[in-house]
Each structure stands twice: as C-alpha cells, then as structure tokens.
C-alpha cells in the first residue's frame, strides 16, 4: 500500500513538474524544473522496480545541465 502511494505521488509530481518545465520559456530558468522533473521520474522508476531505467535517468541528469549551460552561455555571448 505504501509503495503504491509512493508510486502515485512520484507520478503526479513528475506530471506537474513536466508541466512546469514546458511552461518555463527562459531556457536557463527551465533547467531547475526540468532537473526536478527528472528526479521525480527517477524516483518513480525505482518504485516501479526498474533500476536500469532509473540509472539512465541519472545519466541524462548529469550530462544535460552541462551541455545546456554552455550552449546558453555561447548564445548570450553572441547576442552581446
């Protein structure tokens, strides 16, 4: 029962954070809701007994912010 509650909570949280990530227009600010959304997904996958998928989520969460930050930095550099 507790596991199902945890799964439901993680699922709802993931849906809400995904919405927040889509609604955030500024790419830099978008990183925060996106990474929280990623974390909620990882928790959901662990509670669904899919540790392999959860590990893939961790891999995305590690590489994505770096690439985004540098890409945003370069784009701002061009604007100046």
């Amino acid at each position, binding site marked *: 029962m507790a596991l199902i509650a945890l799964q439901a909570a993680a699922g709802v949280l993931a849906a809400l954070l995904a919405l927040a990530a889509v609604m955030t227009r500024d790419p830099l600010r978008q990183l925060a809701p996106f990474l929280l959304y990623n974390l909620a997904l990882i928790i959901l996958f662990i509670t669904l007994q899919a*540790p*392999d998928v*959860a*590990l*893939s989520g*961790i*891999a*995305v969460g*590690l*590489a994505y912010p*770096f*690439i985004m930050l*540098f*890409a945003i*930095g*370069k784009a701002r*550099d*061009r604007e100046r």
Partner: protein
Amino acid sequence: MKPRGRLVVFLAGGLVAAAMVVAGLLDMPPFGHYRGPYGNVINRVAVPERHATNAVVAVVIDYRGFDTLGEELILFTAVMGVTLLLRIQRGEREPPAAVRAEDHVPQLTSDAVRVGALCMIAPLVVMALYLVTHGQASPGGGFQGGAVLAAAPLMVYLAGRYVTFRALDPPKMLDLGEGLGAAGFLVMGLVGMVAGMAYLANVLPLGRTGSVLSAGTLPVINLAIGLEVGAGIVFVIYEFMEQTLLIRRR
C-alpha cells in the same frame, strides 16, 4: 496560416490523437500484469544460458547485441558531428595563452560548490567502475556507468578552474577512449566469428554466476561501451566549453 486556421487544424489533430490515446488506455492490461511472453522467457533462460543475473544487460549486449552495436556507432557519429560543428570557424579565433589566463582569473564559484564537487570526484569514479564491471550481475552496465564516469572530470571543472580541467588534456585522453571503446565492441563481435560462430556470438567462458568475470563477452563489451560513452559525453561537453569560454569572434 491565420491563428484561427491553425486552431482548427490543431483541434482536429488533437481530437484524433486523444481518441487514440483513450482507446489504447482502455485496452491496456491491468497495472503490473505484464502480458508479453518474451520477458518471461528471458527471465527463465538468462541465468542458465548466459550466467547473467541482470536479464536487461543480457538482452541488450548479447541476445540483441547487434542493435546495441548500431546504437553505439550512432553515438560515435553524433560525437564526431558535434566536434565538426563546434570547431574554430572562419571569423572566430582562440586568444593567445596570456590573454586566456587573464580572462579566467575571476571565478565566482562559491566554496561550497567547490568543496562539494571535490568530494564527489572519487565516489563518482568508484560508482562508475562498479556499474561498468557489474553490469551482468546487477543493474547498470556500460551506458550508465560511462555517463557516471563522464561526470568525474566535469566535477574537476566545477571544483577548479577551466585551466585545471584543460590540464587533463581532454582531446588526447578522449580520442583514445572513444577509439578503444568503439573498436572494442566491433572486435569482440569478430572474436565470435574467429571461433567459427556468428558475429557477436558469446564464445568466452561463462564463469561463476554473479562474479565480475562471468557471462562471457558481457563484461568485456560493457567495458568498451563504458569507455565509449564516458569519453563521448566529456568530448561533447569539452567542445561546448571551448566554444563558450575560449573561442571569440574576430
């Protein structure tokens, strides 16, 4: 197209998509009641046939190893594409070393971030090695382990300055890792052919179930994938860093 026409097209498409989603949801098996036969077959045969307790890696690297080889080569190609796109182009220049050093003295990273990143480096390397070498026995494998491995040098960047990270001489190290990783997988496939069987056939001794050197070719290929993925990710981010931090418009 006018906004109104766009809305009509969207509503028509949205309705069709929603109907399909609802129809699909209604026909789904109850939550947690998996109906596919292959999963059950793999769960039964992975340990006796391959001595691999992690059925996922047994499928990805052995039973469907050829698909994974293709995926790895896609990653290889993607990394090469990024490198090609982000090279120094006409109208851009890399400033001389003296200017560069001046450019990078002011660092606004807080001490908390620096200490945190420093403390992460060793655990990340250990976790990456664990994930790569135990892929056949527990959740993990080359792809996940490689990504975690890639995070370690990035922590060096967060903990220090860009110059420190650059002192690791990424291109030399990464060229080697990328090449060895891609070639390792391809060569392990050929080993199967040399033994007179199909490409990527699992011909190595299977060993004791659950140990590091078990499941035949699985740990070897995992190691190759780990190298390839780790080096690939760092290479892409390194190219972005060069573009952002060093290369300026003329």
